[in-house]
């Protein structure tokens, strides 16, 4: 409530969206995060128009050129324009991030909700399996799994998604357990609804918001991990324009051509920071107790 203005008994009819917008505006860091993500998304959407060169066009005369008017971020060891490669690389990195959280979140939601609704032995067994998977450091399992599947960006994504599933299962199950006890769900059961119907009509819909929040929180981490896997050679392979892989190749030239690794790496930092700022903001919004913590 602002102090100025007449005090009238105006109906508080701010729509949910308006209220959300109002609260987001109150948090400068969230606004910053949203602006950063919008910037990234603009580059992702309009990559062909915003890039100055073909990202895969080789020009052996302009190898390892420093940043200049012609090549804003310089060129790589076969003369490809690094700025254009960073711009196109965004499509891959952001795409990978979304793919991972959507797959992990989707599978986790289904398994978790089922586990919560069915309860009993199924639930116990599933939860113990999840405990075991969660007890193992995720980076290590992801790396081992990605290596076992064979180094490619798709396999890396798959490995990351699989390792993340337990987090979503736990979350969805918790939601399902709460929703299952709601009077209207008990009512539905009394009226003869099956587990499947309850899952579809009540649990799936109501368990969604926290899962979406978790997915938002996860996006930054997923993008970071994908680039890390590419960096150690388990993700995108040459000559794909992927940020982590570019930093990795640039490492060979790091002392003389610092720009090669510096710009793609900064792009990772920028994108991950944007998503993490948004994630923090969303968490604050939904959990007022945690506000400003």
């Amino acid at each position, binding site marked *: 409530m602002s102090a100025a203005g007449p005090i009238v008994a105006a109906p508080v009819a701010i729509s949910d969206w308006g209220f959300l917008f109002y609260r987001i505006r109150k948090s*400068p*860091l969230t606004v910053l995060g949203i602006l950063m993500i919008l910037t990234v998304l603009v580059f992702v959407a309009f990559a062909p128009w915003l890039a100055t060169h073909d990202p895969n066009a080789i020009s052996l005369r302009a190898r390892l050129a420093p940043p200049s008017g012609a090549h804003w971020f310089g060129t790589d060891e076969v003369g490809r324009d690094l700025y254009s490669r960073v711009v196109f690389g965004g499509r891959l990195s952001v795409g990978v991030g979304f793919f991972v959280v959507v797959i992990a979140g989707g599978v986790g939601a289904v398994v978790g909700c089922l586990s919560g609704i069915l309860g009993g032995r199924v639930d116990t067994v599933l939860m*113990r399996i999840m*405990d*075991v*998977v969660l*007890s*193992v*450091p995720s*980076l*290590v*399992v992801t*790396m*081992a*799994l990605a*290596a*076992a*599947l*064979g180094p490619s960006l798709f396999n890396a994504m798959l490995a990351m998604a699989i390792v993340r599933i337990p987090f979503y299962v736990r979350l969805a199950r918790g939601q399902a357990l709460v929703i299952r006890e709601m009077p209207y769900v008990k009512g539905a059961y009394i009226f003869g609804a099956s587990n499947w119907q309850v899952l579809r009509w009540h649990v799936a819909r109501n368990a969604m918001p926290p899962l979406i929040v978790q997915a938002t929180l996860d996006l*930054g*981490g997923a993008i*970071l991990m994908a*680039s*890390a896997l590419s*960096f*150690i*050679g*388990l993700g995108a392979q040459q000559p794909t324009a992927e940020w*982590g892989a570019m*930093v*990795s190749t*640039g*490492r060979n030239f*790091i*002392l003389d051509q*610092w720009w090669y*690794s*510096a710009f793609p*790496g*900064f792009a*990772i*930092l920028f994108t*991950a*920071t944007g*998503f*993490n*700022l948004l994630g*923090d903001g969303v968490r604050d919004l939904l959990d007022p107790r945690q506000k*400003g*913590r």
Partner: protein
Amino acid sequence: MPFVNIIRKRLIFLVLVVFGVSLITFAISHIIPGDPARLVAGDRASDEIVTSIRQQMGLDRPLPEQYWRYLTGILRGDLGASLRTNRPVIEDLVAFFPASLELALVALLIATLMGAPLGVLSAVYRDRPIDHVVRTLAVIGISTPAFWLGLILIVTFYGALGVLPGGGRIDPNLAIPSRVTGFYLVDSLLAGDLPAFGSTLRHLVLPAFTLGFIHLGVVARQIRSAMLDELQQDYVRTARANGIAKWRVICGHALPNALIPSITVLGLALGDLLYGAVLTETVFAWPGMGAYVVNSIQSLDFPAVMGFSVVVSFAYVLVNLAVDLIYMAIDPRITGVN
């Protein structure tokens, strides 16, 4: 009683972890597209040789039997032989472990020494510019690709300024201090070898900062949150009302209490640092487990990768146990009920 309870609970968890990790690593190592026997024998080996190697490695046995062998092996401390170095994996890991632990501990020290004051400032000046700066820094910390930060630091402090070494653990011209603990910092001091100590310290600065920076924000955030809770307590107000200076109350009264819940976070951070060192070690050519495991992954040396996963998971559980015990020792109110 509570101590016994916690230890029992953790030990049960440890058994679960042994079982789980062994199952996961076993499953993963059996979905590799390549044939491990062929890998050992080499491309040109005849089929008979590959078959005999397969028999030697027990790969022709039924899966449950193979798993049972693997599991009992782990319990005896036998993690198999590395395909790359041909040495027992456990020996390789024991050789590389101290380097990783030394790096992780120094990184944790850096994260704590920098993160704690930032967290306190952030809590005391809540919603002021410094608070926003610290919170932004915390987010940047968890958003920074460690491998990239490492490279940037190398370019700056080794390439451009030439003030710090760009990789390795000690100046190659110096003798490695004789192994007592495996920590060069400790061993060189024990040997009274100051040049080696200095060189180790200089080699530690960049990798430890890289690794610590990622966790600095986590620590700062945790301390901030705990401090906000403490600063609202009655005893803080009473102390202030009794005329004790503001910063004495903050540092002498509130901070020690705020540190208690933070121990959990620090303990977990140490676990993360151990395996998070994978990337940092690679960038800095730090001869630890992380660099070892990356090399192993790249040459599809699965016994080594799986052994690493097993060891790190154990370390993780043990660190958690230690954290619980420390926690109870300093806060008598906690009686082992989660």
